[in-house]
């Protein structure tokens, strides 16, 4: 890598190409958005490849990726930084967002709606024409590095959070919608990632299709592509298909005996 002598974002650089199989023209759209450093929302169900996509794009654009998983306890200081005490008194420590803003990385806030709305407003001045990050506690105004881009993800279908972004936050972003890929493509992805045959992957995908029919009928979300990869990995290692599906899908998705029995039925419908 042709990194400068001291690269504060060295740890955030992605060395090898992350596997990503495009389902549409999202790669081209992302590149266009990045050309203008447009803030992006990636929407889609759990485990459909949002994070993998942004990793892939960061790799192909050669930018470091600073990922932050948002949670309810996260405060603005966790994003921008805070004063800590050292031998000489207090010292300011940049938070991950400030790091990316200062040194030109892609900052990825995963599951952004999990963070409280008053936390997410700190990104407002970054996501319009100003592209600045005021550090009010430090009294500094950080102008965003030309390479900096903000990307957030969220999962609109996940009912239990039932949270939403403030309209004022939402309006600052362009959005790309993700969904589970269509059957053939999903099978290819599972086969590649889990290292199993295409036939087996297609069966796993068929199970997932059935489970996704049960959304709103007791399941918040069906079996995700990621779960299929887990199941495939176990099968590749010699675990029986039934056991690995039970472990990675049925038991992982639900505690309800009826639902578990139906999910196990889908597994048997493929593997006997």
């Amino acid at each position: 890598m042709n990194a400068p002598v001291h690269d504060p974002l060295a740890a955030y650089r992605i060395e090898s190409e992350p596997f990503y199989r495009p389902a549409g023209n999202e790669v081209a759209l992302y590149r266009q958005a990045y050309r203008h450093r447009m803030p992006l929302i990636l929407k889609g169900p759990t485990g459909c490849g949002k994070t993998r996509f942004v990793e892939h794009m960061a790799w192909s654009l050669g930018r470091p990726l600073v990922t932050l998983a948002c949670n309810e306890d996260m405060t603005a200081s966790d994003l921008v930084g805070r004063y800590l005490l050292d031998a000489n008194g207090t010292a300011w420590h940049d938070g991950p967002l400030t790091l990316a803003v200062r040194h030109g990385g892609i900052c990825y806030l995963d599951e952004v709606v999990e963070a409280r709305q008053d936390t997410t407003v700190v990104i407002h001045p970054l996501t319009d024409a100003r592209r600045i990050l005021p550090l009010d506690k430090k009294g500094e105004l950080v102008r965003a590095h030309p390479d900096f881009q903000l990307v957030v993800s969220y999962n609109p279908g996940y009912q239990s959070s039932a949270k939403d972004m403030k309209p004022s936050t939402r309006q600052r972003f362009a959005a790309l919608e993700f969904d589970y890929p269509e059957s053939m493509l999903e099978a290819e992805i599972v086969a590649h990632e889990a290292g199993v045959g295409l036939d087996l992957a297609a069966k796993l995908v068929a199970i997932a299709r059935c489970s996704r029919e049960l959304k709103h009928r007791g399941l918040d979300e069906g079996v995700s592509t990621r779960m299929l990869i887990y199941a495939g990995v176990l099968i590749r290692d010699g675990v029986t298909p039934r056991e690995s599906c039970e472990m990675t899908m049925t038991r992982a998705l639900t505690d309800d005996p009826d639902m578990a029995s139906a999910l196990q039925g889908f597994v048997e419908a493929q593997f006997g």
Partner: protein
Amino acid sequence: MNEGHSGLGALALLARGLAGIDVEVQTLPGARPVLAGRRLLLPTSASAPGLRRAMVAHAVAHLRHSQPARPAHALRPMGIAIVSAIEDARVERLLCRDFPGLHGWFAASLPPVPDALDLGFAALVSRMDRLLLLPASQDDNHWVNKARRLFEETAARAGLEDYDAFRAIASILANDLGQMRVRFEPQDYVVPAPWRDDNSYLWDFAETQTAPDEAIALQQSGARPAPPPPDAQDEGGALPPDAAGDIELGRYTYPEWDRKLERLRPDWCTVIEKLPAWQGLLPAREQAASGNERVAPLALPRARHLDRTHRLRRQWEGDDIDLNAAIEVLVDRRLRLRPDARLFMRPGKGPRPSSVLVLLDLSASANDPGPHAASLLDIEKQAALMLAASNARGIDRLAFHGFSSNTRAEVYYYRLLEPGLPLDEPARTMIGALRGRYSTRMGAALRHATSLMRAEPPGQRAVLLVTDGAPADIDVHDPRYLIEDARQAVAEAREAGVRAACIAVDGAADAYVRRIFGWRDYCIADDARSLPARLARMSARLAAAR
């Protein structure tokens, strides 16, 4: 018994997943399953889980691949039976192509091989079923082997999707049987494969004079619970106690949305708050005595939020340095003492009051006994009592209200349990005394509930409606009118900071709940027995949301 019931729920989910559409699964006395529209009636005699799953799989095969209700008038009864048997085999093949594991379910349910000397119609069909299902099996009967040969040839030549090609070979086979003088007695014939339905799904017997056995089965299936009578008014009078016996507490008027005029009609509906007529303590006792009342209290998550007015000082970590503590640290350092490293401060967390109003639909249709004897109203009551009993460690302020309507002039509203009050004996009795009557005018009830919720402390405020059908009332004939009005009421509630959500105990609810409550705030319970769990989960979500 209970086990069998919980099995039905799992079977309905199984069918939904495999077929991609909602299928209602119920039981019915009889020898073979009956598939009527999207309702699958399993014979009560079949209790083996493997057989029941095979029945569901076969029904899914029809739902996915068969065209229902083809005219039957051109065929003789024997022709119908053969065409149906070939169609059964065809759609099962198609299904097994997508779900190869299902083959094992069917094979495991195969009846024993009939006596080789039995050349009766049922025995021949049974042998044909076996040959078509198990490629490795052998049979010495010419007709049965011909059936297999024709079937495999057609499948290879025309493909399994070609119904007409298979219909043609079925005609040949039926003709052969006629030549062989095999007798067919429609009254005695039962489809030999125990997991297959009686095929009434496939045929429309509208014009046949002599109804074959399938038609009889069709009539038999008419024993299932009828849809609620559209005119619920007469029924209301017959049901004790009459609404007039209730004690009136107050009257409120609300507007209603007219979808054609696209505006609110002011003061259109009158909501009458009432106390349900006193029934004595009997119902509460009854419920207390029934065993399944003793359900462990549900543990619900508690909504928490940061309280900016409350700062925690001297913390190990936090957003800001607590200056007093920092100065002490520096002083300690100068004195070469070991400083206390807890020098941060952060906002504290305090529980935030969350209020959830569960609004029960008390229309006459809730009285209808479900497939498992208990009416929806009984299940609603049980679920309400269970949820209220779990209140101690769950939602801060839980309320139960109910409503029913008899034209826009009389929307009855019952405040059964007020927010924040414990579930005491009078409240239990009141819930127990509820009777379902009249209709479902959702909009007016939602508006009233919203106005009551606005008086609740700020925080999460939600109305959770439990209903068994689309909004309807006897003075409204446009089915979309009340749906649009309810949608408007939900939007108004949202503007007022009250979230409205719905649990619909109605497999066909897709058509309206989403329109009314938006794409996220609803949940469909195909099976009323899953209502208590759904209610608990949904209200916990509403309480935990922001």
